[in-house]
């Protein structure tokens, strides 16, 4: 709808191409910013409620029905709060850092196809651009830690750099498998490749239904392993539990956001969630079929490409499911230690991701015919590799112990 509206406006403004371009960008950017700001608000509510239920509490229930207006109340509180800047901090960078986090996260969203024709910046090298811009996040976080002039902030900033740089490699490597298999860096093409064409446009409604799922990359051995690696690395990349070391509240207070208050803190908060949306959005695009989902032929249309449920509904549904998983993980797991975190990245995820790339190449080039057997073999192989790697890393494998009693 929005797209059609945008096209119509651009058509009307065709007389002056420059103006049309600016209006076009605005028309794409404004809904993006609004929608994701709303998503952010809803996610904070969801997170608070979900965590509360996991912890046997009720959660916010005073502001609005089910506490739904709690994010608004929080927002008002954040905006009206005093903005405290430490006297000895680097004021300019202290101000810039939260903006940079938000901007880089927001920019990443531009490459995600939310629905058919709903990619804000449809370029051929979207995946590369995505990772390039995501890398800016690291810089911003370190800037915040450095500029605050606080030892905890500095520790948090350094942890963030170490962690994000290490986890970016398995993240990219697992994305590489998809790029290899699809043969394109364009996110739209990657989504398109996950539809089984023959089924999706067939007359049989059952096949049509399945056609939208069966091609998801997550159902292939390399895709499955890739998705798990990608997901774990995404947790670390977005500083979510159990990899939330840069802001580990039990060790370094709040890490790099220790010295932030008021609206700047809210920006960090917002930026982090938007970053999480972006990375999850990429995960959906790469492995979970993007905006495709089980769908039906609308009764009013005979167009084989027409869908009953619009694509963006599927996309946001998937995003919130993944978000819920993040919340669930956050409610359950304790945090890793710095050295364990790093060794997990370098000694486990990275080799596994590399092996996964080889497996993907093998399947793509060698075992084209015997697909089923090759797939099973690849699954088993990947599992064995993962297990072997974990064995190798922990020479004195921690295990539950038996205890004896003295009478």
């Amino acid at each position: 709808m929005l797209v059609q509206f945008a096209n119509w406006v651009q058509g009307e403004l065709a007389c002056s191409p420059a103006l049309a371009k600016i209006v076009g960008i605005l028309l794409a950017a404004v809904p993006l910013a609004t929608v994701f700001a709303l998503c952010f608000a809803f996610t904070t509510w969801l997170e608070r409620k979900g965590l509360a239920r996991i912890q046997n509490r009720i959660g916010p229930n005073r502001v609005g029905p089910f506490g739904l207006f709690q994010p608004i109340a929080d927002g008002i509180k954040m905006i009206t709060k005093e903005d405290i800047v430490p006297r000895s901090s680097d004021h300019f960078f202290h101000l810039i850092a939260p903006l940079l986090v938000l901007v880089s996260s927001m920019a990443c969203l531009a490459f995600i196809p939310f629905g058919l024709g709903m990619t804000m910046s449809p370029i051929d090298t979207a995946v590369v651009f995505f990772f390039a811009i995501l890398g800016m996040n690291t810089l911003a976080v370190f800037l915040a830690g450095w500029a605050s002039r606080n030892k905890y902030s500095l520790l948090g900033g350094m942890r963030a750099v170490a962690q994000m740089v290490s986890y970016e490699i398995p993240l990219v490597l697992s994305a590489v498998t998809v790029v290899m298999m699809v043969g394109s860096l364009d996110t739209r093409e990657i989504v398109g490749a996950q539809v089984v064409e023959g089924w999706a446009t067939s007359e049989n409604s059952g096949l049509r239904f399945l056609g939208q799922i069966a091609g998801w990359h997550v159902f292939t051995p390399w895709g499955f392993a890739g998705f798990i690696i990608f997901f774990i690395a995404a947790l670390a990349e977005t500083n979510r539990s159990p990899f939330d070391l840069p802001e580990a509240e039990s060790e370094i207070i709040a890490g790099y956001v220790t010295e932030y208050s008021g609206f700047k803190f809210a920006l960090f908060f917002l930026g982090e969630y938007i970053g999480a949306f972006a990375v999850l959005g990429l995960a959906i695009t790469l492995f979970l079929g993007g905006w495709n989902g089980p769908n039906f032929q609308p009764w009013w249309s005979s167009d084989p490409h027409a869908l009953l449920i619009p694509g963006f509904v599927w996309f946001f549904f998937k995003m919130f499911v993944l978000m819920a998983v993040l919340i669930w993980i956050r409610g359950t797991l304790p945090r890793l230690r710095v050295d364990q975190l790093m060794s997990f990245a370098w000694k486990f995820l990275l080799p596994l991701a590399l092996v996964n790339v080889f497996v993907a190449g093998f399947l793509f080039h060698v075992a084209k015919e015997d697909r089923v057997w090759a797939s099973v073999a690849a699954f088993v192989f990947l599992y064995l590799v993962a297990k072997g790697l974990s064995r190798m890393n922990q020479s004195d494998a921690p295990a539950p112990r038996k205890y004896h009693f003295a009478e």
Partner: protein
Amino acid sequence: MDLLGSGIFKGMAVTLKNFAMTYFDRGRKERLPTVQYPEAGDTVTLFTRNFPFLIYDGEEEVDGMRCVACQICERECPPACIYIVKEKDENGKFVKRPKVFDIDVSVCMGCQICVEVCPFDAIVMDSEFEYSKEDRFGDLLFNRDELLKSNDYYHKIHPEEAQARDANLAAKKAADEAKKKAREEKAAAAAAAKAAAEKEASEKKDSPEASEPVAEEPKAEPAAPSENHAKAESEAKEKPAAEETPVEEPAAATDETEDAKEESSGGSEGKETSEEPEETAGSGEDDEKKAEEGEGVS
């Protein structure tokens, strides 16, 4: 390690179960223990205690007050949050009533020691807990009139305890009555002998009858001055003897021993701490006299 991360998945199953169970009725009781405070009721139990209050019997707040300003609670209060000034009538004599009875509830820790030491069941613990006030200092300093609450209220918040206390009081009163009667008879019989003995006593020693510990009942009239004087002397002799025994009589005995203990503890404290209210100075006597004043009320 059989499966990678199996422990983690087990843990996640537990949290998922907890998440889901909060939406079921059975789970709600078990797993959602939150009480929505202002709407849902409080959970006051039988012995719930917060801060003390003073009981009065009947309708009249001040007249029905059980407290006789014996100051035992003031002395025993561990954080020293009670402050008592005795009331005097026009003649400068003490009335068995506190003029000032302040409790600084910002200091009070609700330990219930005052309730335990009170021989008159006059101070008990309240279960009220909503004490938020606008003024941090002044409003949290409760004076006598704020502290006074009726016995009916006490019956309402701690029924069993209140009944026990009432029964205890009634029994004590009956015992006192009987004792008073007996003493009146005794006093009448000994009156003549006493008058004669008094002369001797002023020079030498007291008569043996007078030296036995006589506990005055709470509701009794103030004794005549001459009698008082004699008793003061007798007590002065009695006290050191009481102090020598390291362990005093058990508390949970008849009211007579209880009274005796109050006497001795009150007396010795009166000697040690010179912070006894200076009103007593009006009588112009020494320590014994002070102790006796304390006695006269209890």
